[in-house]
């Protein structure tokens, strides 16, 4: 009896599910990471030294500890504390926080790129502090850092593969299971690599295009 069965069209649903899960968790992390990053980035520009020192250290930890370690630590300890969490939930939380740590720096430099005089001009038109934030500082600052934002978002899509280590059935884990059944690692990993490339490359080209257009 043959233990191994080759890759076949019957596996396409399984693979598609992996692809969708990868996209799903990436989108969740990018959306939540962007929203939190915007808030934290803004706080870093506006807050006093003490708050900034605290925020800065917390972000440094998130950025400096490898994502794979954060994932394993979090999902293991949350389970050990008696609150087991499903892999999607645990993965989303850590990946979102990790994304937030990078996004907050992107947005901070975006806010810093809006000259003070621009804010004064807006205030002199009678805008309140928050109106200035909403209509002037966010739109101008965000535009300036769009290419960097896209860069972070792209790396999140690729980093989402690491969530496989805590058992989330995204594309990489899906392919690992297929490999153990089919013993066709080369074909499968090439296919998976190609998928990430097809998603990432056009987006990074687009980012370069926007950057070029903005620099004119």
């Amino acid at each position, binding site marked *: 009896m043959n233990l191994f069965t080759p890759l076949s069209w019957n596996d396409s649903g399984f693979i598609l599910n992996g692809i969708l899960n990868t996209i799903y968790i990436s989108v969740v992390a990018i959306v939540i990471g962007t929203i939190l990053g915007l808030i934290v980035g803004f706080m870093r520009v506006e807050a006093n030294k003490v708050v900034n020192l605290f925020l800065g250290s917390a972000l440094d930890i998130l950025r400096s500890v490898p994502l794979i370690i954060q994932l394993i630590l979090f999902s293991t300890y949350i389970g050990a504390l008696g609150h087991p969490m499903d892999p999607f939930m645990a993965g989303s939380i850590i990946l979102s926080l990790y994304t937030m740590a990078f996004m907050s720096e992107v947005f901070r430099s975006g806010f810093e790129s809006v000259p003070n005089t*621009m804010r004064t001009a807006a*205030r002199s038109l*009678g*805008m309140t502090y928050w109106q200035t934030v909403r*209509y002037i500082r966010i739109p101008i600052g965000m535009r300036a850092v769009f290419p960097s934002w896209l860069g972070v978002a792209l790396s999140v899509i690729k980093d989402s593969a690491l969530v496989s280590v805590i058992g989330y059935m995204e594309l990489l884990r899906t392919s690992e299971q297929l490999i153990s059944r089919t013993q066709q690692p080369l074909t499968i990993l090439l296919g998976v690599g190609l998928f990430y490339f097809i998603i990432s490359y056009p987006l990074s080209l687009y980012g370069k295009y926007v950057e070029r257009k903005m620099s004119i």
Partner: protein
Amino acid sequence: MIQIRGVHKSFGDLEVLKGIDLDVEKGEVVSVIGGSGSGKSTLLYCINAIEPINGGEIIVDDINVHKKNTDQNKLREKLGMVFQQWNSFPHLTVLENAALAPQVVRGLSKKDAFEIAMKELEHVGLGDKFDEYPTRMSGGQQQRLAIARALAMEPSYMLFDEVTSALDPELVGEVLDTLRLLRDDGMTMICVTHEIAFAKEVSDKVAFFHEGLIEEIGSPNEVLENPKKERTQQFLSKVLH
């Protein structure tokens, strides 16, 4: 009217305004001249409550500008201000630049805000630039946009802070023409300026600032043609040659 009474202002240890008294009547054009560091720009920032003051008071119509419970955003609706740097909002078209504050601050509908913005833009000669982005325009055009943007709030007073200083020489004329237009409309204006000839032509009153005090004030003829104070004479002889 704007009443400025004994205004003191310090930045740290540096006292920039040392007791300024100045009245600006409705419809009047007052030019403020003086060397750099004399406090003339700071005074504008204090009138607009962008900078707090350390003593005295400023009253615009019947609003006491620096009193604790004064709604400074409401106050700023009365006071249009244009700066040395034009500060166009780069993410908005010319029309949107001028319509933003009427929409957001005055709460006008988009249609009404655009209507006012169009009117003011046409007034300053930018009627053919509605859909242009300001970064594609010259400094002079952007400065006229800044004037239209302030006018779209339908202010009672306009404050001009060296609005031609950052412009290339060939662009100064178009901005000064716009200021003349406002004077002819009867707008009340305070112009901090280095353009002595312009001040002579448009002003009802000229104030010469020196080290945080008004050294000399009077009609353009008095202050610019026949200055009594030695410092005024020295300053004028420097800038006119």
